[in-house]
C-alpha cells in the first residue's frame, strides 16, 4: 500500500449545489470489482480533475457516469436529477459531453460528420464556423475520414465535438495523453475558455502539474476509491510526492 491513502474527512466545498453528484458508485468487470464505492461532487462551473495510477478505475468511473457500464450500482445526479438508470443517449441529451480515452473518432465518418453526429443539446452549442475558427486544422480536413487525422488532431476533434453539441458538463478522459507540449498547452487554453463560458469539467489527468494549471480541485483515486480531495495549493506543495505516488 502507498503512503498517501489517508481518507480525508474534509469534504469538497458545498456552498454551491453540485452539477454532478456521484454517490457510492460500485462497478465490476465480471467477478472483479473495480469501483468500491466512489463518491464525488463537481460544482457548477468548476474544473475538477481525477488523478490516479493506471488501473485505479478512473475510466470506469467516467463510463459509469455516462451510463456505459452496465454493472454499476450507486447514484449519479446531474443538476439534482437522478440519472442512474437513464440510457446513455438520454444522459447526453441532458448535457453530458463525453471525450473517451480512445478519442472515439469514427473511421466511417468524415471529420465534419464526426463533429455533427451528436445533436445540439444546449443553448451554448458552438456553431460549426466557431469550431473551425478555434480548430483550423479541422476545417482544412473536414471532408477526410476522421481517422485520417493525426493523434493530436483526433483529440482536438473529440473535444470540439462536445463543444459543438453544447454540453454543459464535459467528461474528458485523458485528453492530453500522448500529445506534444504545444498541444497540451492548447488543450489547457481550450479548457480555460470553456470554463469561462460556464461549462463544468470533470477531467482525468495524469499530469498533475498540468492539472493544477487548469483545475480548481482534484480527486486522487486509488484502487477503486477516492482517497483524497486536494486543492491547487496542496497539489503544488505535494507535487513530488504525488508524482512519485502516481509512478510517473
Amino acid at each position, binding site marked *: 500500500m502507498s503512503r498517501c491513502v489517508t481518507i480525508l474527512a474534509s469534504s469538497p466545498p458545498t456552498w454551491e449545489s453540485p452539477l454532478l453528484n456521484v454517490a457510492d458508485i460500485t462497478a465490476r468487470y465480471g467477478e472483479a470489482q473495480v469501483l468500491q464505492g466512489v463518491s464525488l461532487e463537481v460544482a457548477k462551473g468548476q474544473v475538477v480533475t481525477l488523478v490516479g495510477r493506471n488501473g485505479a478505475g478512473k475510466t470506469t468511473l467516467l463510463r459509469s457516469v455516462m451510463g456505459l457500464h452496465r454493472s454499476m450500482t450507486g447514484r449519479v445526479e446531474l443538476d439534482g436529477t437522478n440519472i442512474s438508470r437513464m440510457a446513455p443517449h438520454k444522459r447526453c441529451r441532458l448535457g453530458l459531453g463525453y471525450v473517451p480515452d480512445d478519442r472515439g473518432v469514427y473511421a*466511417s465518418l468524415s471529420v465534419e460528420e464526426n463533429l455533427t453526429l451528436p*445533436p445540439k443539446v444546449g443553448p451554448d452549442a458552438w456553431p460549426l464556423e466557431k469550431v473551425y475558427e478555434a480548430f483550423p486544422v479541422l476545417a482544412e480536413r473536414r471532408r477526410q475520414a476522421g481517422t485520417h487525422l493525426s493523434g493530436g488532431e483526433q483529440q482536438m476533434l473529440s473535444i470540439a465535438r462536445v463543444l459543438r*453539441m453544447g454540453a454543459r458538463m464535459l467528461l474528458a478522459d485523458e485528453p492530453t495523453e500522448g500529445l506534444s507540449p504545444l498541444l497540451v498547452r492548447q488543450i489547457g487554453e481550450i479548457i480555460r475558455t470553456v470554463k469561462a463560458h460556464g461549462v463544468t469539467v470533470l477531467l482525468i489527468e495524469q499530469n498533475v502539474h498540468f492539472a493544477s494549471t487548469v483545475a480548481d480541485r482534484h480527486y486522487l483515486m486509488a484502487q477503486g476509491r477516492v482517497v483524497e480531495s486536494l486543492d491547487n495549493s496542496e497539489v503544488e506543495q505535494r507535487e513530488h510526492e504525488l508524482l512519485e505516488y502516481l509512478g510517473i
Partner: protein
Amino acid sequence: MDALLQQLFNGLVSGSFYALLALGLSVIFGMLGVVNFAHGAFYMLGAFGALVLLDSFGLNWWLALLLVPIGLGLAGMVVERLFVHRLVALDPLYNFLLTFGIALILQDLIRLKYGVASQPYDRPDVLGGSVNLGLFSYPKYQVFVLIFSIVISVLVWLVLNRTRVGMIVRASTERAELTKSFGIDVRRWITPVFGFGIALAGLAGVLAAPMRAVNSGMGGDLIIVIFAVVVIGGLGSVFGSVAAGYIVGMLSAVGNLYVPALSQSLVFILMALVLLLRPAGLFGREEGVLA
C-alpha cells in the same frame, strides 16, 4: 468476342441479384452484428409475394415491385422485434440456429402449398421482347433488371453517405455503444434497418419472378454465393457488397464460358484469395465508406 460480351452481360444481370441481396445482408450485419441466414428465404418470399398478388388479387408485377418489399420489410421488422433482437446478448451460435431455423420454416411453408415444382410468372408486357445493344440483342427485361438494381444500389449508397440517417447508421455500425453516448438512440434504428435489408431481399425476389425458376428452394441455392459476395466485398461495407456482387456475377459467367466445370467454385476460390490477401475484404473498413 460477342459471346464473351454477352456472357459478361449475363454476369452483370446475375450480379444485380447478388448486389441487392448482399447489400441488405451487409447493412443488417453492420448494424445488428447478425448474419441473417434467412435472407435467401425472404428473397424467395419476394418472388412468391408477386405470384400471390397476381393470382389471388390480380395485381400486376409493377404493383408487386412496390407492395412486396413494403410488406416484407414490415414483416422483417416484426421478426426483428419478436426474435432477432434477443440474439444480441447470446452466443453467435444462436444467431445461426435462429435465422437458419426461420429460413427452413419459411421454405417448408411454401413447399406445403406449392410443392417443389417451379411456378410460372410472365414478364410484364412492356418489358417483353429484346433490345438491340449494338453487338448483340438482349432481353429487355434483363436490361431493366440491371439498370434498376444499379439505381437502387446508388440510392442506398447516397442515403447512407449523404443523409443524417445514413450517418447514424454508419456510426452505429462502427461503434454502437459509443454512439449512444453521443445522444443517438441506437436501438431505435435497429428494427427499421433490419426491415430495410429484408425489403431489399423481397425486391430482388420480385425482380427474379419473371426470369428465374420460382420455387421454395430458390433462396437456399443463392444464399451461399451471397455470403461469399459479402465476405469478398468486406463485411459491413455497402459499396464493397454491391461491387463484389457485380464482380462475382461476371466472374461466374465468364468462368462458365471458358471453364464450365469450375464456374460454380470460382466465387469461393476468389473468396479464399481475398481472405488470404485482404482479410477485411476488397473494400473493408481500412478504406472507409468515404473512399
